C-alpha cells in the first residue's frame, strides 16, 4: 500500500476541492485560515497558489475564529478550513461570532465518521455537529461529492448575508477513511 492510500485525501479525479476554490473566489474570500487536513490538501494548494488570498496556518483552530473577526472588522471576508477534531478547539471562541454578529464560514473535513479506523477520532467526530449547533452555527452536511459545492455555497452565502457562524461538514464517506494499511 502506498503512503497516498493511507491519507484520507480525495482522489485526484475528484473535482470538488476545485469547485470549493472557485466558490471562495466567487465570494471574494481574502483570508483563508487553516490547520491542515489531508482532506483539504488540494484546496489548500490552490489557495496557496493564489496571490489574492492570504493563507494563514494556525497553531490551533480557535485562532482562525478570532482572525475571521478581525478580517471582518477590516472589511475582508475570511474562511476557516479544518478537520472535525479542530471544531472542539473553537468552542468558546465561537462566542465572538454570536456576540458581534460576524460572518464565520467553516469548511470541515470529517473524521471519526463513516468507516473510521482510528478510535481517537471518534469522540470529537461524533460530537462535531452537536457542538457547532450548540454554539449557534448553521450546519450543512455533504455526504456525496455532488452535494459539496451546493453545501459550501449555502454556507458562504448564509454566513456573509446573515452575519453568523456557518459550517459545511464534508463526510468521511466522500473523503475516504484512513486505514493505516489495515483494510
Amino acid at each position: 500500500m502506498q503512503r497516498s492510500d493511507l491519507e484520507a485525501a480525495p482522489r485526484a479525479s475528484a473535482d470538488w476541492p476545485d469547485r470549493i476554490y472557485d466558490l471562495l473566489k466567487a465570494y471574494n474570500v481574502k483570508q483563508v485560515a487553516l490547520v491542515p487536513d489531508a482532506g483539504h490538501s488540494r484546496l489548500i494548494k490552490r489557495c496557496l497558489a493564489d496571490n489574492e488570498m492570504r493563507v494563514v496556518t494556525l497553531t490551533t483552530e480557535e485562532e482562525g475564529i478570532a482572525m475571521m473577526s478581525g478580517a471582518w472588522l477590516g472589511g475582508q471576508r475570511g474562511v476557516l478550513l479544518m478537520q472535525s477534531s479542530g471544531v472542539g478547539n473553537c468552542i468558546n471562541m465561537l462566542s465572538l461570532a454570536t456576540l458581534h454578529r460576524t460572518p464565520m464560514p467553516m469548511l470541515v473535513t470529517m473524521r471519526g465518521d463513516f468507516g473510521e479506523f482510528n478510535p481517537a477520532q471518534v469522540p470529537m467526530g461524533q460530537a462535531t455537529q452537536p457542538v457547532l449547533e450548540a454554539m449557534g452555527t448553521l450546519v450543512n452536511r455533504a455526504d456525496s461529492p455532488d452535494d459539496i459545492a451546493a453545501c459550501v455555497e449555502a454556507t458562504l452565502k448564509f454566513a456573509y448575508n446573515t452575519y453568523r457562524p456557518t459550517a459545511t461538514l464534508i463526510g468521511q464517506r466522500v473523503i475516504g477513511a484512513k486505514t493505516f494499511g489495515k483494510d
Partner: protein
Amino acid sequence: MLSPNGKLHRRALVAAVLEGRGDMAVIAGLGAPAWDITAVGDTALNLPLWGGMGGAAMIGLGLALAQPERRVLVITGDGEMLMGVGSLATISVQGPKNLSILVCDNEHYGETGMQETATGHGVDLVAMARGAGIKHTMFVTKPDEVAGLRAAIHAGAGPFFAVAKIDAETLPLVLPPREGVILQSRMREAILGPAANLE
C-alpha cells in the same frame, strides 16, 4: 506614571501609549485592558472585548492583514496572552508591519480574584515572542522607557511585541458598551465608511 508602590500605573501607561493615536485601531483583551482603553476615551476605533479569551492578538492579525495601511494595536493582559500564546508563532510567520501587541502584565488574573499567573513565576512572554520569531520586542518596567514604547508602537515597523510590568492594583471600573454588534459595527463604519453597513 507610577502607582503609590512604585510600579507603572496601568491607565497612565495606556494613556501615554495612545496619545496622538490618530487613526490607529485598538483591540483590547477582556477585563482590565478593556476598561483601561475605555478610561482613556471610548471611540469607534476601540474594540474592547467582553469574551473570546486568548483571541485578542489574532483579531489584531485579521484586522492588520485586511487594513495593511492602518496601524493596529492589541492591548491585553498576561493571562489572556498566555491563553493564546501560540498565536505569536502565527503572527510572526505572517509578519504584518502594522501590528503591535502590548501586554500589560500585572502577573495576576485580575477579574477573578487576583490569582497568580505564570508570568509571576518566571515565565517570560518577551522571550516566548522572540522564540516565535518576533524580532522587534521591548520589556518595559520604568516610566522613562514609556516614550520609547509609544514610539515603537506608532512606528509601524512590526510585528512588534512588548510586555510592560504594571502594578496589580484594582482600579474603578470604566465600562465600554456591552453590545458586541455596536462595537463591531462602529469600528467597521469608522474604517470602511457608511458602506460597511450595507455589506
